[in-house]
């Protein structure tokens, strides 16, 4: 309460002034103010990323593939395509070029870069077959030996099939 520093005639007016009610702004006043406080708003560059991730996770009512998983799938697909492409190029080479020359080139490469090819082959094998399969093969179990043999037979069988196809193609061409 303030001390009286006014004439007696003003006392009732002063008392009435003190009884004047506070007036209220509209109900959403605080919300409208808060929405315009700069430091309480999320950074403009971050919000769209968060929103898009949220949408991605909700699409179709199930959890979408996370970016890391998607990247792995892409790598496997790329490796598969590369292997198929190399296989097709090799088959074409066997069919339309001199096989002995190609064999000589491959032989020289195997001799010169055997270690590098083994390392690269191991990496490619890990990507294609998976680390669990590679570990299984490297364990030296009986099943692994059988698997090696199957792979070797498959390899030689494929090589023989390609040579036969090339021979037939040459005969027909002649």
């Amino acid at each position, binding site marked *: 309460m303030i001390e009286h520093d006014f004439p007696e005639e003003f006392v009732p007016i002063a008392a009435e002034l*003190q009884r*004047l009610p*506070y007036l*209220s702004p509209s109900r959403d006043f605080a919300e409208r103010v808060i929405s315009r406080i700069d430091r309480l708003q999320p950074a403009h560059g971050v919000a769209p990323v968060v929103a898009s991730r949220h949408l991605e996770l909700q699409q179709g009512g199930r959890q979408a593939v996370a970016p890391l998983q998607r990247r792995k799938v892409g790598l496997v697909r790329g490796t598969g395509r590369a292997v198929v492409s190399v296989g097709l190029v090799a088959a074409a080479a066997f069919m339309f070029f001199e096989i002995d020359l190609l064999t000589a080139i491959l032989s020289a490469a195997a001799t010169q870069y055997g270690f590098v090819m083994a390392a690269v082959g191991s990496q490619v094998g890990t990507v294609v077959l998976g680390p669990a399969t590679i570990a299984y093969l490297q364990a030296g179990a009986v099943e692994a030996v059988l698997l090696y043999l199957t792979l070797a037979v498959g390899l030689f069988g494929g090589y023989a099939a390609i040579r036969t196809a090339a021979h037939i193609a040459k005969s027909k061409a002649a």
Partner: protein
Amino acid sequence: MTPNSYTDVSDQQVVVFAQEGREDAYRELIKRYERPVFSLIYRMVRDNETAEDLAQETFIKVLNNIDRYRPEFKFSSWLFKIANNITIDHLRRRQVDTISIEGSPDAVTAERARATAVSITSGGESPLEELESRELGGQIEAAIAKLRPEYRACIILRHVEDYSYDEIAEIVKLPLGTVKTYIHRARQELREYLEGVR
């Protein structure tokens, strides 16, 4: 700390929390002062929508500059100072309207102000408004509206908000003597306006 626990926390401490970026502290400051600030502004501009806009502008300005608050002053004084500045600026921009209703703000005496004012006691009031206007509270609201904006701010800060003369001088950025003169004149004018009511 939850918003409920701000009950016994001083303004200065709430401001510190707000400076740390805590939204509940901002909301607490709005909760504490939205009504006093809105009331002051409304009694100066006499228009609900305008008062709300100006009160909103006041809080946005204060809270966006909360880091500039100096704790040696009362937070409420700083807040009212900004509210008063914004309102006076608005009234100066709307000077023509102000003259047409309440008399020229350049009028140096109550008589001169009344001479330049337009009567607002038309017969357009509803019965309820007429009944309310007969009561002293309603008459005081009407009488405050007739004061010059500078007088209004001073008299409200003195008699409604209980600020000292020094604090009012700080808020309205006027010399102490001028504030005392304004309040003295405002009281005189209020007495004159309300003479027939009591």
